[in-house]
């Protein structure tokens, strides 16, 4: 490792020359030193990156083709058996349907966030107050949110009390049936994440120069026209980003359902299932395969987004 680094840095020295303002060729020792310098800065970050991101991915891939239980020294190569199990065992595959609830919630969330961002981009009274109120839930601790809403949906809790104010008396157990529970949990996730989408949209809208609106108004455009022809194109990059974040967020929903129901009554999500497989049932092999599937789906979605909207901001080099 050290050997290649040394060689690499010596050769890299001429490349580094333009950055140096000194026209005369530097002595050999300085050149070598200059070549090593960036690696001294990068050694710790790279070590952490490889240890905690790339090594796990590589291990995970390897585990996914075995029947390892996570503790015993013994493991057997099982080929693609784990992968076929995920896609054929109905009880394992079911979690994808739960993601559907969160996906639907994301759609509602994006539309609502767009609406609030649009109206709050105009001059309104108490604008900052409303902005703060809408954003604040995003900053709250997930466990606290879970408890707040456990009480909200509880028998005789916040929701029931509010309904009874309007004369609706119900003994419906909101978290009691799979459909109702998943809908409730997805609703909580809207409550929690709407603020981030809203602030992203608002930032994008406010970065549109104000003269555009004035010019449009002179041309007789109404609010809807302004939204359709000025705001919508202006926020397209942020919108696609949000869609991607929502899809990967829906697939990896974990905190809210785990804290509130622990995955009971049909609210188990992909991540909860994977964690249970790995740490409760000691099926590290199967859990790894599940994690690989999730990772591939998310990478695929991101790739599609990058194809749809070539984003020049990510160009680092």
């Amino acid at each position, binding site marked *: 490792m050290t050997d290649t680094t040394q060689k690499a*840095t010596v050769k*890299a020295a001429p*490349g*580094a020359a*333009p*950055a140096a303002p000194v026209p005369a060729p530097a002595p050999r020792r300085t050149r070598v030193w200059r070549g090593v310098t960036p*690696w001294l800065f990068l050694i*710790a*970050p*790279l070590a*952490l*990156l490889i240890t905690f*991101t*790339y*090594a*796990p*991915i590589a*291990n*995970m891939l390897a*585990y996914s083709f075995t029947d390892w239980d*996570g503790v015993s020294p013994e493991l057997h190569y099982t080929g693609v058996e784990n992968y076929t199990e995920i896609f054929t065992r109905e009880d394992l595959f079911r979690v994808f349907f739960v993601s559907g609830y969160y996906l639907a919630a994301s759609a509602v969330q994006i539309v609502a966030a767009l609406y*609030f961002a649009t*109206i709050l981009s105009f001059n*309104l009274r108490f604008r900052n107050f*409303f*902005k*703060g*109120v*809408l954003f*604040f839930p995003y*900053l*709250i*601790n997930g*466990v*606290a949110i879970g*408890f*707040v809403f456990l*009480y909200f949906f*509880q028998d*005789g809790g*916040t929701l*029931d*009390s509010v309904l009874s*104010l309007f004369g609706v008396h119900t003994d419906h157990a909101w978290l009691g049936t799979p459909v109702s529970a998943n809908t409730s949990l997805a609703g909580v996730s809207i*409550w929690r994440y709407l603020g*981030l989408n809203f602030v*992203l949209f608002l930032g994008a809208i406010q970065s549109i120069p104000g003269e555009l609106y004035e010019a449009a108004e002179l041309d007789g455009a109404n609010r809807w026209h302004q939204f359709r022809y000025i705001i919508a194109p202006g926020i397209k990059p*942020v919108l696609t980003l949000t869609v991607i974040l929502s899809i990967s967020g829906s697939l990896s929903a974990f*905190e809210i359902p785990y804290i509130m129901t622990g995955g009971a009554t049909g609210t188990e999500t992909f991540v909860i299932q*994977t*964690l249970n497989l790995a740490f409760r049932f000691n099926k590290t092999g199967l*859990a790894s395969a599940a*994690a690989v599937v*999730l*990772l591939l789906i*998310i*990478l695929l979605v991101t790739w599609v987004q990058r194809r749809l909207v070539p984003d020049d901001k*990510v160009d*680092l*080099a």
Partner: protein
Amino acid sequence: MTRRTVARTLVYLSLIAATILVLLPLGVVLLTSLKSSKELAGGSGALSLPDSLFNVDNYVTAFQDGRMLTAFTNTAIILVVAIGGTVLIGSMTAYAIDRFTFRFKKLVVALFLVAALVPGVTTQVATFQIVNSFGMFDSLWAPIALYMGTDIVSIYIFLQFVRSIPISLDESARLEGANAFTIYRKIIFPLLRPAIATVVIVKGITVYNDFYIPFLYMTSEDLGVISTSLFRFRGPYGAHWEVISAGAVLVILPTLIVFLSLQRFIYNGFMRGATR
């Protein structure tokens, strides 16, 4: 003109409805935290006001029996070390990538780029084995190392700022005999102050709120952080909503204070973090 007034009214109504939707669940929990267990059992309904607005008994119970002091201490330690590390690592990486030309630079950049796309939740199955093999399982080091090692977003934020620092500053310092480390320490790092503020805020809130990593890696009760300690309220206080509510309020309060005092930085920070 009347149409405009109607539209305006509808807009305000929708905003008020949203405000109620956001604040009502939180407000009710605040009310509940001030009630005694007798009041709750009395069945006066979740929306009723508590008998005394200054009843802090539940907070005392939550703080002492819920071991919130340990939790806040552990969270504070993790916050300070992990954020300090993130700032150092992020700024060093950004400096090296932006200011030097070296071999394999493209590869290094690609490694960081691709890592940004990998969601941490997916790889924990295997990360767990690695953390375990270092003997970091069930210690404060596990979350510290993971928060420091997997934060690509702050590298992006630093990179944007390093780019905006004129290279001529480096050059004139170099002419005066400063080496790369002096330039980083004396010129780049101080000029990165706004980026550091952003990273500290965004990272701080994320770490403070994180549940997944401490839950997975710090299982013993002495190592509770605020998320996991609050989560443990479920067992012993299962039916005592007044104590659970007090715990939740205790956890939310610091966030509210930080939010109110640093609003502008927080909006900008999260926008930068997400759109990177």
